[in-house]
């Protein structure tokens, strides 16, 4: 291996830097938006909501609503979605030993897309059922991928990935068909597919938080086993690791988190690839380091990306997926160029 000596332990410096980055992103995300509000007023408005604190922020009722009902939940949700997608991406890359794996590898995106499209055409995009439909569709697609991979006699990750390709193609075709039959809802489906946090509030945060919490916890607990699996499936078996069991648990946790994230934010691409690889390039290839830093880095990345989505064309919005891909695609080229350093055969 010609990669730089992989860091085995989390260095306080790396954690500190990422944490500061995340807190900075959260703060900027809260202070900056389509409407110019004075930073002091925004902070005192938030402080006012804390227990035992009473500060007059001087904001009008509408401006207070902007801070408390729009910006804060949005920033929190962006952090949760970013953390979940980045961790899921890192986990998928580890469990499939494939640098190009992303959280949507096994059909989550296609399944959620079909579920959301059916929800939107039958009940309208504002219905509370749409996230549930996306969530359900994502889980069904991944379950189908697993069943298909198993039926093909697949004990290897490659069979699963191929099954995922087939399932994703099928679900995407079905989604396109349904969407085409209901041309009047094209714009809503499209805006969902491009990813958005523009209409979210605290209810979405409450919806995602439990799934994201469980998913992140399980993935973080498996970070050592991912390191073992990185040496190869057969080698891991000889070391006493049940590869298929670990894979099932990790994929289930990553899928649960991803499906919930997709359900509230639509399809936000590239976070799951960009962030783990950035961490890998900067601090080494041990999952004991990559996973925790991806959680923090993913949160910071998406908060900043959403800030761009909100402000670049203010008072209009740029789809979040456009921003992440715009940053993600060039970054991806760099990763590809340096892939031969870190990723062996």
């Amino acid at each position, binding site marked *: 291996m010609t990669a730089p000596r992989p860091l085995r332990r989390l260095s306080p410096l790396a954690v500190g830097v990422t944490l500061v980055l995340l807190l900075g992103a959260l703060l900027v995300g809260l202070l900056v938006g*389509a409407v110019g509000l004075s930073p002091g007023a925004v902070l005192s408005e938030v402080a006012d909501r804390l227990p035992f604190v009473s500060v007059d922020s001087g904001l009008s009722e509408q401006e207070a*609503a902007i801070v408390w009902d*729009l910006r804060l939940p949005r920033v929190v949700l962006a952090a949760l979605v970013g953390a979940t997608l980045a961790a899921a991406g890192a986990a998928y890359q580890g469990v499939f030993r494939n640098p190009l794996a992303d959280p949507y590898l096994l059909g989550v995106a296609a399944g959620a897309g079909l579920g959301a499209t059916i929800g939107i055409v039958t009940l309208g995009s504002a219905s509370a059922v749409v996230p549930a439909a996306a969530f359900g569709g994502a889980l069904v697609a991944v379950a189908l991928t697993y069943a298909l991979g198993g039926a093909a006699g697949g004990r290897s990750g490659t069979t699963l990935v191929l099954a995922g390709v087939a399932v994703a193609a099928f679900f995407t075709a079905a989604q396109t068909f349904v969407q085409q039959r209901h*041309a009047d809802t094209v714009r809503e489906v499209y805006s969902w597919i491009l990813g958005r946090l*523009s209409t979210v509030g605290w209810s979405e945060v409450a919806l995602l938080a439990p799934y994201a919490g469980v998913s992140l916890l399980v993935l973080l607990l498996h970070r050592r086993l991912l390191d073992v699996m990185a040496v190869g499936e057969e080698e891991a078996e000889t070391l006493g690791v049940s590869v298929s069991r670990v894979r099932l648990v990790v994929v289930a946790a990553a899928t649960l988190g991803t499906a919930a994230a997709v359900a509230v934010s639509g399809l936000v691409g590239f976070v799951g690839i960009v962030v783990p690889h950035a961490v890998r390039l900067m601090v080494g290839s041990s999952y004991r380091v990559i996973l925790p830093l991806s959680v923090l880095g993913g949160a910071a990345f998406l908060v900043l990306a959403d800030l761009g989505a909100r402000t670049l*064309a*203010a*008072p209009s919005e740029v789809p979040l997926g456009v921003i992440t891909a715009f940053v993600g695609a060039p970054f991806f080229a760099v990763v590809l160029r340096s892939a031969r350093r870190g990723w062996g055969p």
Partner: protein
Amino acid sequence: MNRARTPPIVALVLILSVLAAACGGEGDAGTTTAAPSAGFPVEVAGTVIPAAPKRIVSASASHTEILYALGAGEWIVATDEFSNSPPAAEATPKLDAFNLGVESVAAFAPDLVVLSYDPGDLRDGLAALGIPTLLFAPPLTLEDAYGQMRALGAAVGLEPEAAALVAGIEEEVARLIAAVPARDTAFTYYYELDPTLYSLTSSTFVGGLFGLLGMESIADAADAAGTGYPQLSAEFVLAADPDFVFLADTICCGQSAATVAERPGWASLEAVAEGRVVPLDDDLASRWGPRLVDLLAAVAGAIAAPGGG
């Protein structure tokens, strides 16, 4: 056009079109011996209509409504799936407005096709088959809409009816405008096209109707790209705190005053607190036929309502 730069595929299409036209011409020569109708042939918007149309395909909901209002409804043989008014239009055979093919239209053997959108070479393709086709772009002003009504009247041989229709609408519009109480400052409004906060500015057709009633769109300040239909952020809408919220997504997307009030932060809006969230009929709000009067009346009614003073 510079001939040397014509791509081969375009040339091929042109050749085939000419051949098709030639074939069509031959076939017609033997069969059409109908007596020439009074006033025809007539040229409308650059399209020559040889005889009074008796088999019309209307792939535009607005123009379907205009045709029925003129009394040409019985000549309509097919419409697009959005043509749902008047009720008789719903019973006609339906075309897919977004995937119109030359063949699927020609299969109805129309002698006039009316479009408000050309997915590609539909108009040229139909012209090549010798089928007169009118393409009316969505109007920007009331005058444009009147012009389309008059043009359509001329195309179907009902010019006097079209003049009467326009005069009737003008009268109603003038009456509605006159009934609006004078104000020092214009009412502001947020007009919602869908729940992702697409809106429209005062310089669009519908925005122009609101302007006649002395209202200003909050989206005017957000349309840097000049499309007339910017997407707003929730922050922007809350900060603008418009006097009225008009929902043109009640049918498509199930929006109502109740769903708006439930959105994060929207309860703080004056319009929500004062009951000035006005649901509109999506169809009315996206068409420029005779029912534009109904849209204007709905808006004028909202202003005159107790909450709107």
